[in-house]
């Protein structure tokens, strides 16, 4: 005993009696935290596995699910692989997906480095604009690109006049990959930019002190440090390009280049005699590839922590000065934004106000509002707009809540199947939309009470929601990981149970991440349509399906009008949400 002065308090600390610890009720010895965890797990499992099961079953059945008396057989797989063109399809898909991934990175990484790490004229503005292409669906981006850069596009015509020939061919795997890459680059950009913002600026200072100039620092220190976000976004982009339908369909059909998604589309919905068995088998393969990539991703994410060294006090990043090169860089980014997204969007908006849009005639001669008129005279079209907004708003809310709970269970609970929850949430990442649609169609058809959902907006929300879940999960997870464990631990020791810790403490802290996820999911669901092809009815069409209808009928002007409306709604929502976020970024 070293304490001499034993004026030991006879009373309790702070002169009070000990308050009893709270007691939490248990159902058969299970506390409510555990109930929530199991609830999320089961809900997710149902949600994600439900549409997969009918497809798996179909892949082993010798006739469509709707026909009675089928036999189980592996013949669908053998037929798929012996199908004459299938080898070529796989090769095309590989080239397209790898090409898209590589191009995406080639665009995104330099831009992220330039915007976040260097002194760039109008850096903030450029950084914000970098994300535009994400707000446009690839269907629209594809249309836009054809209008500009297709064999008879506005720009192509000018270039051909000037050079005498056209140095590019949009209708090729390369063309598809470039377009898709422009559309997906914002995702990789955001990943890299966030990592760059977090990384330790003293690594760069150290290089400068050693005598390295700005360029050497970029190539020797900054870019190699980006390996984790690069790997993560590559896998995401790769699986997205496996699944994407619009661009391959638009560019590939005239030159008969088929990739996996168009193969599924033509053999599924468009075929002379749809072969559901092959469709199921092909979908199963794509699912297997997806699960493989998700597994790789989980592994890489796990090791990524070893790679990033964020330690000690936060250091203020010092922006590198590239000297004259910064103007080159700024111009490069402007070119990307202008030619990749801005011109196609402007073209689209302009298209929506003209009768015909061709380099062969002055479009100002045919200015009109009739494209909008057509959209607004048919209540079904108008309804598809309101449907889209309802679906995106309700869906974004539900999906973000589910994703938030899933992240908490996966990353913040002692739950036994925490890892499985994460896998479940990420698997839908590359489930083709059509497959999700068909799968849910059967789920609703076979599930007791499913009839109540079938054909309603709820069905579409569920299908779109599934596809958006990984996005929401992916955007909330890092935020949760950033919040120290000890904040929940402190709540636990103070007497809150697992659920209480979330409800009382983390809820408020996660609000910005939640709003971020809300925006992302809203945008994603606004753009989504393929899952609705099989699920929607006359009353439940969405902007995307209406656009497809109008396109098939040749009402391109109205397609442009709808696309313009869609972009406008998205822009308004994003702006409002950002305002809201700013208001709440205090504390």
């Amino acid at each position, binding site marked *: 005993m070293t304490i001499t002065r034993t004026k030991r308090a006879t009373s*309790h600390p702070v002169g009070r009696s000990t308050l009893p610890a709270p007691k939490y009720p248990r159902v058969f010895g299970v506390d409510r935290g555990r109930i929530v965890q199991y609830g999320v797990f089961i809900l997710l499992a149902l949600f994600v596995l439900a549409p997969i099961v009918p497809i798996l079953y179909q892949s082993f059945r010798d006739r469509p699910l709707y026909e009675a008396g089928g036999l189980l057989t592996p013949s669908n797989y053998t037929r798929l692989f012996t199908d004459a063109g299938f080898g070529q399809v796989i090769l095309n898909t590989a080239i397209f997906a790898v090409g898209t991934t590589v191009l995406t990175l080639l665009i995104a990484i330099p831009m992220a480095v330039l915007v976040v790490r260097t002194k760039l004229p109008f850096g903030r503005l450029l950084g914000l604009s970098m994300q535009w292409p994400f707000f446009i669906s690839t269907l629209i981006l594809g249309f836009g690109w054809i209008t500009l850069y297709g064999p008879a596009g506005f720009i192509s015509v000018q270039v051909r006049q000037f050079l005498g020939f056209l140095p590019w061919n949009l209708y090729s795997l390369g063309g598809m990959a470039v377009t898709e890459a422009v559309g997906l680059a914002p995702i990789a950009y955001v990943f890299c930019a966030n990592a760059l913002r977090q990384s330790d600026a003293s690594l760069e200072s150290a290089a400068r002190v050693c005598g390295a100039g700005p360029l050497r620092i970029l190539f020797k220190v900054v870019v190699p440090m980006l390996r984790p976000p690069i790997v993560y976004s590559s896998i995401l982009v790769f699986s997205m390009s496996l699944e994407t339908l619009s661009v391959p369909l638009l560019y590939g059909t005239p030159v008969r280049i088929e990739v996996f998604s168009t193969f599924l589309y033509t053999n599924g919905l468009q075929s002379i005699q749809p072969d559901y068995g092959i469709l199921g088998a092909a979908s199963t393969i794509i699912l297997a590839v997806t699960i493989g990539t998700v597994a790789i991703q989980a592994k890489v994410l796990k090791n990524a922590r070893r790679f990033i060294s964020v330690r000690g006090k936060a250091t203020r990043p010092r922006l590198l000065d590239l000297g004259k090169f910064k103007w080159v860089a700024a111009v490069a980014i402007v070119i990307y934004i202008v030619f990749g997204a801005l011109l196609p969007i402007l073209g689209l908006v302009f298209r929506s106000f003209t009768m015909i849009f061709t380099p062969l005639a002055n479009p100002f001669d045919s200015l009109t509002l009739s494209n909008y008129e057509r959209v607004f005279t048919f209540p079904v079209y108008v309804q598809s707009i309101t449907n889209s907004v309802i679906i995106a708003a309700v869906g974004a809310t539900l999906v973000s809540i589910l994703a938030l709970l899933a992240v908490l269970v996966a990353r913040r609970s002692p739950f036994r199947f925490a890892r499985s929850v994460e896998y479940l949430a990420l698997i839908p990442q590359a489930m083709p939309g059509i497959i999700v649609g068909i799968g849910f169609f059967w789920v609703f058809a076979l599930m007791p009470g499913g009839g109540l959902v079938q054909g309603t907006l709820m069905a579409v929300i569920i299908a779109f929601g599934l596809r958006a879940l990984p996005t929401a999960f992916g955007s909330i997870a890092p935020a949760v990981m950033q919040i120290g464990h000890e904040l929940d631990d402190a709540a636990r020791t103070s007497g809150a149970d697992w659920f209480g810790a979330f409800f009382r403490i983390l809820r408020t802290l996660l609000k910005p991440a939640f709003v971020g996820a809300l925006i992302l999911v809203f945008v994603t669901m606004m753009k989504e349509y393929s899952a609705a092809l099989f699920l929607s009815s006359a009353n439940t069409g969405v902007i995307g399906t209406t656009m497809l209808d109008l396109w098939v009928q040749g009402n391109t002007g109205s397609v442009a009008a709808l696309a313009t409306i869609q972009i406008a709604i998205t822009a308004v929502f994003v702006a409002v949400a950002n305002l809201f976020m700013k208001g709440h970024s205090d504390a």
Partner: protein
Amino acid sequence: MPEVHVKDLHKKFGDVTVLNDINFTIKEGEFFTLLGPSGCGKSTTLNSIAGLESPTSGSITVGGVPFVDTAHKLYVPTEERNLGMVFQSYALWPHMTVEQNLVMPLAIRKVSKEEKASRIYEALDTVGLAHLKDRFPHQLSGGQQQRVALARALVYSPSVLLLDEPLSNLDAKLREQSRAWLKRLQVDLGITTVYVTHDQDEALSLSDRIAVMFEGKMAQIGTPAEIYEKPATAAVAAFVGSCNFFTGSLTAISGGTATVRLDNTGLEVKVASTLALKPADAVTVAVRPERLRITSSSDAAGTNVLETTVLTRSYVGSRYEYGLKLGSNVVQVVSPVGDLDGGVRLVFEPEDALLYPGADVPSAEAQELMTVAA
């Protein structure tokens, strides 16, 4: 104020055993410290008491209430243990004011409005921060945050207070001042406290008793003076306070005094020891810097005298710390004299040194740091 009994605690993460047979009892009102290097399992032990980790086997009882008993599959969740805990990073909820931070545990316990107010005032007053109750954590200095965290842990009068390196995020000066303050507070409150730190100065100056841990095992439990003056192993001696180690071999042992031939110089020194050793056994002699006397070459008188040269001299506030070269070893000595240089003599009595069996030197890293070209 209840006793804490920790019995046969084991904890594995996967295949790695992090805690191995941990046993200790903390007396009512005692300030008990877990001291050890980073990664030795201190936090895991503390978290097991708090219920934030569940041990692989063993039992923990606080004030007669069993919290964990793996033999009987008993496990009380954290929130029902009613302990107060302060984390290294304070873990204040950043979106709540100081007051709101303190309200939370009371709200969970459904305390009446008046009692809430009075308890919060009392707790904040105890830590001297009643005037800051409307601030947000980010508007407070590190030291103030740390005190708010303490107030939050005390506001519901928990049975035991658990502190995990609560001072390590403060800067050097404030850490020292807060240490004295914390000590007074705990004496005043008389609350049973378990304190985790890897800072020996903190452990020595704060604790009633210290448990020194290495790699998931208990090395020694005792009062600060016992730990410092009679360290059970060379590792404890090295970890608690500075210490110079010399390996050597025993040449003779009789009457509580061992004669040791040092490896680095070949000289013989006499050390008091009651160990059962026989000649030629490898041994380690440990001497604390302040037990070594240093004199200029000529007038040395003492049982053990070693010839050395001065490598470095540092002023450490009213005293000087010398780095001396003995063979390829650096020897650290503290002396009030500040003008020594060149060849000097080190003198110490047999009772000033400690003897450990085996060539039991500190970690490889420490060894590297204490070696110079001979």
